[in-house]
């Protein structure tokens, strides 16, 4: 690899930056020395000069943050794409998603601030305003791309989670089948097992107030039998597990692990159903809007007919008015004629009498 001697470039850059700084300081000196008349113009130059460099500083910082976030997103993509069954690192992925979300929100705010800042700035040339607005738009589009990628990564992650859950279910196939049938209906086997568990903890945990614990256990058992919601018997199983006394067989443990997984998903299922209902409502709304548009389009035809009819009416009425006017002029003109005829007749009569 040949080395390139770039010290000259470095020196020229340093000189340029120094001249830029001295240029601003000379502007300041000029404003101090010159008369107050020139103050306004140089003052106008100074803040815009500073503001332009300030703008570029802010824009540079924002783009740096965007590249950082993009780097974190790449890491997250790598983590999310792993298809191993057991080495999944949900904690790390969750933390990373949280951090990226926060970063994106912060970047959004920064870009909004930058936009307001540019709106409040007056620039000497139209090109400078165009430039700043272009920079802001490009930053926004970069951020939009990053958030689109983030969304894709999250979708990939959910798909992978679903796949891994299916694979896990395949391995625990038999117990999964049992529990799928029994998740909402408590079988007598499970009921008896739970009651057996309910009896054991009160005997072992004497430090707690036994009455209240049995009360809650009994109530929770009755609530469990009454509705198939979240099952609180995990309290009892957890307590037996934490005490380390093997009160349950491995098969039961597997079953309860299955139930626990089903529990975890229940919250997520609730959310997904709620969001699906929102989606269907929105689709319904879309259909209603379509219908509305169709009806209005049909009515447009009636409106055109009405339009045509009124134009005809206007034409007819105008024509009729014209005729009547002609008629009127005819009548009035005939009178004039009559007058003239009578006048001549009278003249003739007068002539006759004079001759006579």
């Amino acid at each position, binding site marked *: 690899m040949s080395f390139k001697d770039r010290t000259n470039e470095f020196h020229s850059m340093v000189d340029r930056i120094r001249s830029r700084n001295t240029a601003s300081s000379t502007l300041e000196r000029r404003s101090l020395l010159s008369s107050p008349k020139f103050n306004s113009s140089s003052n106008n130059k100074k803040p815009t000069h500073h503001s332009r460099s300030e703008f570029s500083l802010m824009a540079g910082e924002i783009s740096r943050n965007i590249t950082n976030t993009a780097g974190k997103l790449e890491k997250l993509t790598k983590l999310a794409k792993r298809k191993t069954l057991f080495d999944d690192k949900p904690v790390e992925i*969750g933390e990373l998603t949280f951090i990226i979300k926060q970063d994106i929100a912060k970047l959004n705010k920064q870009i909004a601030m930058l936009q307001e800042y540019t709106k409040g700035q007056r620039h000497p040339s139209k090109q400078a305003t165009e430039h700043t607005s272009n920079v802001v738009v490009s930053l926004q589009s970069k951020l939009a791309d990053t958030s689109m990628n983030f969304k894709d990564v999250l979708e990939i992650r959910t798909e992978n989670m679903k796949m891994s859950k299916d694979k896990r279910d395949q391995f625990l196939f038999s117990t999964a089948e049992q529990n799928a049938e029994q998740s909402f209906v408590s079988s007598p086997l499970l009921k008896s097992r739970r009651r057996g568990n309910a009896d054991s903890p009160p005997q072992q945990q004497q430090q707690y107030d036994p009455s209240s614990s049995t009360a809650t256990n009994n109530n929770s058992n009755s609530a469990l039998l009454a509705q198939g919601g979240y099952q609180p018997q995990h309290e009892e199983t957890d307590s037996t597990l934490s005490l380390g006394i093997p009160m349950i067989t491995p098969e039961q443990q597997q079953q309860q692990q299955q139930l626990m997984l089903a529990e975890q998903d229940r919250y997520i299922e609730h959310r997904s159903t709620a969001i699906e209902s929102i989606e269907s409502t929105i689709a319904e709304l879309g259909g209603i809007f379509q219908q509305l548009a169709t009806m209005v389009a049909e*009515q447009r035809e009636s409106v055109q007919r009405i339009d045509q009819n009124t134009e005809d009416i206007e034409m007819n*009425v105008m024509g009729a008015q014209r005729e009547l006017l002609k008629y009127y002029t005819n009548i009035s003109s005939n009178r004039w004629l009559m007058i003239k005829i009578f006048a001549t007749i009278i003249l003739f009569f007068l002539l006759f009498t004079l001759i006579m």
Partner: protein
Amino acid sequence: MKLYSILILSKVQDKAQIIASQFDLSSFGYFQRGSVQEFMNFSSTTIAERTPIGQRQSVESENNVAHVYGHPQDIWGIIISDKEYPSRVAFSLLNKILDEFLVKFPRDKWNNPPLNYPELNDYLLKYQDPKQADTIMRVQNELDETTAILHKTIESVLQRGEKLDSLVDRSEALSSQSKMFYKTAKKTNSCCVVM
């Protein structure tokens, strides 16, 4: 649908300890409030000790439900509400509260309970009506209102259609009448010279 309390706990050597809590016991009688609060504290410590990290549970007793979530960073959040309060909203509220709490109070400040976290009170008040506070429910509500408004709009568009049809008929009648008018005027004008 009421929220009774929000509690945040941490575990110190396998024993749960309440770090911050807020209560809204206005629906209980004045003399019962003390004992109810004691009961809530005790039951929340008990439940938190038995909840593994990363798991959500809901425990019912009489008419009240305790929704509990063990956050992966060793902190538990419990919301005690009545049975009708939707569990989904409670858990999403727990997520939000625990995240903000972790941002505001890093781990080293947990040593002197109880901490003062006034946002808990705001959340407790705001989320008394889950339909307004939870985003998903609010969106669903607004969508339902919009659909109702759209149905009314379609009704009025139908009526507009009917009125437009009647307008068409009337304008046609008027048009034929004006034509007759024109013809009559023309007739009186041209034929037979007027006197």
